[in-house]
């Protein structure tokens, strides 16, 4: 039986609906949440990602702004810009679009973002709080994965979650979130990677399989247990076999084959992507609520 397709757009819509009420309350107190994205250079994928976020912000009634810096901006100029935003009372959330050009120190730049405005949870102090189980901002992609699971009725509670890919923006924070002893988490979690020998033997153990390797069709049907929940975080551009010369977006999962075996699966596009941007908005609203309480 083909799998239930988890509709990320619908879930994102639902989340934004809930956020709108909170935004209205803030506005009634004279606070309009604002997210500022810093973009260095002209990377087309980054530009399109930020455009998606801006749309999600507008749909929720929050403000958004993109600060564009030249490809050759210095570390000092970048940090000065971040510091200025840290102090700006009209700005509640700051994201720094990655990757940065090679001459810039990503870690130092991320550590400059005020932990109170770090809505993508990249400042090490927020990552530490995440792992410790303290109140923090969850990075939007893993946060979105957790929301997708819980809201589609597949809570990770008591389940074995296998995460393929251990990046600092997806795999690691997701592991830290899902092992916490709380509702919507409480999972047994394995992290592995594309280099894992006999990856299939590991992935076949999963009740919930999260693919975050950045490699098209890396997860094939033989790697998935019958009845597993499959969450695809991958976004890969491949040549469209139906339209030679054109490109299309696919995930890390061989969707057509895996959907025949899985109990539920997220599509690409329309799965984790829309929820990721909704979570970024959610974090911005939370930041505005926290900051305006002070």
């Amino acid at each position, binding site marked *: 039986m083909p799998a239930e397709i988890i509709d990320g757009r619908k879930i994102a819509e639902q989340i934004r609906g809930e956020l709108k009420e909170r935004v209205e309350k803030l506005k009634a107190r004279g606070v309009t949440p604002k997210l500022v994205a810093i973009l260095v250079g002209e990377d087309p994928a980054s530009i399109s990602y930020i455009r998606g976020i801006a749309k999600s912000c507008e749909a929720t009634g929050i403000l958004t702004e993109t600060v564009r810096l030249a490809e050759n901006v210095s570390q000092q100029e970048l940090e000065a810009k971040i510091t200025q935003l840290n102090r700006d009372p009209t700005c509640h959330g700051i994201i720094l679009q990655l990757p940065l050009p090679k001459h810039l120190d990503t*870690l130092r730049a991320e550590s400059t973002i005020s932990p109170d405005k770090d809505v993508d949870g990249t*400042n*090490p*102090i*927020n*990552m*530490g*709080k*995440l*792992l*410790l*189980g*303290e109140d923090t901002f969850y990075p939007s992609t893993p946060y979105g994965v957790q929301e997708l699971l819980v809201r589609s009725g597949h809570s990770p509670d*008591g389940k*074995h979650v296998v995460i393929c890919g*251990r990046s*600092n923006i997806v795999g*690691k924070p997701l*592991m*830290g979130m899902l*092992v*916490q*002893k709380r509702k919507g988490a*409480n999972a*047994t*979690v*394995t*992290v*592995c*990677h594309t*280099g*894992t*020998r006999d990856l299939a033997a*590991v992935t076949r*153990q999963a009740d919930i399989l999260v693919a975050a390797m950045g490699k098209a069709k890396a997860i094939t049907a033989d790697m998935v247990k019958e009845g597993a929940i499959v969450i695809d975080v991958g976004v890969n551009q491949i040549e469209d076999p139906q339209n030679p010369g054109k490109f299309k977006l696919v995930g890390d999962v061989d969707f057509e084959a895996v959907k025949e075996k899985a109990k539920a699966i997220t599509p690409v596009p329309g799965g984790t992507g829309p929820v990721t941007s909704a979570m970024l908005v959610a974090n911005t609203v939370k930041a505005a609520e926290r900051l305006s309480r002070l």
Partner: protein
Amino acid sequence: MAAKILDGKKLSAEIREELKGRIARLKERGIVPGLAGILVGDDPGSVSYVGLKEKASEELGITSHMLRLPRDIKEGDLLKEIQRLNRDERIHGIFVQLPLPRHLDESKVLSAILPEKDVDGFHPVNVGKAWLGQEAFLPATPIGIWEILVRYGYGNLRNKEVVIVNVDNLVGKPLASILAQQKIGANVTLCHPTTPHLPSYTRRADVVVVSVNKPKFLTADMVKEGVIGIDFGSNWIDDPTSKTGKRTVGDIDFETVKEKAEAITPVPGGLGPMTVTMLLANTVTAAERQARIT
């Protein structure tokens, strides 16, 4: 064939000898490493543990500054003491003996320690940096485990299955912080003691780490032939054959598992002796970093 016994007592003595050399080099430059500890109240376990740390520091030539504060100390006063130690240039490492009395906010207290002096590795900045794979202080238990593995020749964990039965901030999560990094390349699974079908995880493990404080929790039928067993349990059980009528055992059923394992840590004499040593090692590292010798 019986397993190799991973002798923490012997390793600990070896590491302390190496530390003496590093301390001597610091002293040549006029730096005497200083460790400050804060003990609130008079919990007998904590009193004796702080005493051990004090004695071990002095034996190595690390100056120890132990503050014994009254049980009913106000949080503000405790924070002031920490700030004073943060500023004191003679002190390179600071730890707060846990648990704290209930009226004190543990997370607030630990976050007050300067990350550069946080030799227990509990400050969220250190937790986050370690998780992200950056230079940071890590708690004594996980680095003690890592040292045991490396020094006994089991440090190459690429493509190995590591199963950790513990998801706490002291053991499971920080150990995953070391072992789940790309450069190590292990597949790491964090299990709760309550994980359903736990033996199905532990039986796959090349390395199994247990810290649940239940005697004989991990039995021979739960491990595969050739496993490396690491035991951080400490249980005080009845033993009519001993003079006191009691003895300490770990969480692994040592007698039966050692017949199947490649290597195993005993209790006592395994990880226990390593923890104080690793705290001292972190203190020496802190002194070197603060003096910019690394």
